[in-house]
């Protein structure tokens, strides 16, 4: 009944790994674009815009990713949208990641000292120029360690996409196990692969954090702590 492990199984796992990486990239790019928008709206002078994005962040932070996935994959078709597992997973992760990155990045933008804004303002720069040329470049440096750290969370969270039938690493392991029934071995391999994806990111994040030259150490530490807290 059960066949033994062979090369085609490993190929299958490899495909799953590629899809995990692909989905992570989709989530990071989509969530990053959304997150930047959210971060900018959160500090906008417009009160409705601030309220709207703040509500979005609160809502997503208080909702399990799993439920968001169910809503997009099973809920949207009910409203007449046909949606593939990939679209559902990509969309859900984008919505999820956008809220977290938006909040992390807002903190980074706000941790750029007010005096920098003022110096730029007194040099006759417009609000947009101040943001683009003075504040954002500094915020990016502050944000990099916690953002790279958050990418670890994205990679691990893509495993939830398996519940809507998207065949990434976790799902491909499940399917494979159904045929060979070697759960310990297979899931151990999967764990190793996830670790191999995440560990370099964690190390990178740590290294960036130590290097963080321009941010005040306390600001970076506080942000990092906040990022960690919001994830647990």
């Amino acid at each position, binding site marked *: 009944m059960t066949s033994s492990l062979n090369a085609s199984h490993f190929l299958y796992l490899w495909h799953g790994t590629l899809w995990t990486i692909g989905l992570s990239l989709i989530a990071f790019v989509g969530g990053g674009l959304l997150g930047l928008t959210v971060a900018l709206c959160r500090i906008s002078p417009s009160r409705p815009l601030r309220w709207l994005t703040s509500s979005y962040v609160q809502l997503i932070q208080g909702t399990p990713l799993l439920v968001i996935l169910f809503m997009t994959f099973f809920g949207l078709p009910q409203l007449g949208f046909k949606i593939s597992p990939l679209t559902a997973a990509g969309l859900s992760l984008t919505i999820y990641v956008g809220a977290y990155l938006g909040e992390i990045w807002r903190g980074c933008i706000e941790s750029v000292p007010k*005096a*920098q804004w*003022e*110096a*730029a*303002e*007194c*040099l*006759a*720069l*417009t609000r947009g*120029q101040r943001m683009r*040329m*003075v504040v954002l*470049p*500094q915020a990016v*440096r502050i944000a990099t360690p916690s953002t790279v750290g958050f990418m670890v969370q994205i990679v691990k969270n893509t495993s939830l996409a398996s519940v809507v039938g998207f065949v990434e690493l976790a799902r491909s392991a499940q399917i494979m196990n159904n045929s060979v029934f070697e759960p310990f071995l297979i899931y151990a391999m999967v764990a190793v692969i996830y670790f191999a994806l995440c560990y370099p990111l964690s190390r990178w994040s740590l290294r960036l954090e130590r290097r963080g*030259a*321009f941010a005040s150490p306390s600001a970076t530490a506080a942000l990092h702590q906040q990022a960690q807290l919001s994830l647990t």
Partner: protein
Amino acid sequence: MDSNGAAVVLRDVHKSFGANKVLAGVNLDAQRGQVTAIIGRSGSGKSTALRCIDRLEKVDSGQITVCGRRVDDPAVDLKALRLDLGIVFQSYNLFPHLTIEENIMLAPRAAKRMVKAQARTLAHEVLARVGLSEKAVAYPEQLSGGQQQRVAIARSLAMQPKVMLFDEVTSALDPELRGEVLKVIEELAAGGMTMVMVTHEMAFARRVADQIVFMHAGRAWECGTTDILNSPQTPELKRFIQSDL
């Protein structure tokens, strides 16, 4: 233009932060081509007055005119105001992610649409004026506090302002670094730049200022030439001068 031709005019300026009244009717005239030094104890409203002139703070009531432009007008053209005014802060506030010359080139390029080559020439010109030509490609963190402050002055000069404001620009510096910054300011004064400076450097104010404004309790308590430092009319200024010795 204001009738008396002064570059900066404050008339009965009031400003509170919450229940804390910081400016309680300030009157001040800073003449063109002259150096006005604002002195006084911490909390007397010196820096707030300066920040109001640059519209970093909005006044509660009263009038402020800079080069004929009403700063207290809610619809004031802020960009035009900032093109007329240069300001140097106590904490330098250079942009840490940009090199020295990029710090200087940023505003002429962004606010005046100057082409890059021209902005770079200008940057080297103003750096030479503050004696830091060799630091053009360094980053702010590689410079001493005194050097950073001279760059901040150069950055402001590159915008060719009509009036320069200095907010306690040597207060964050070690005593041995103050001289180089004061020398730059003194040269600017000799060149006829209109300046309003908040300062604790009494000896410097004595030497360079055309007008001394002593602020006390949110008012320009006593104004005059540097003579008022030798023969103060009010007991408050007298006490202030004595405590400085």
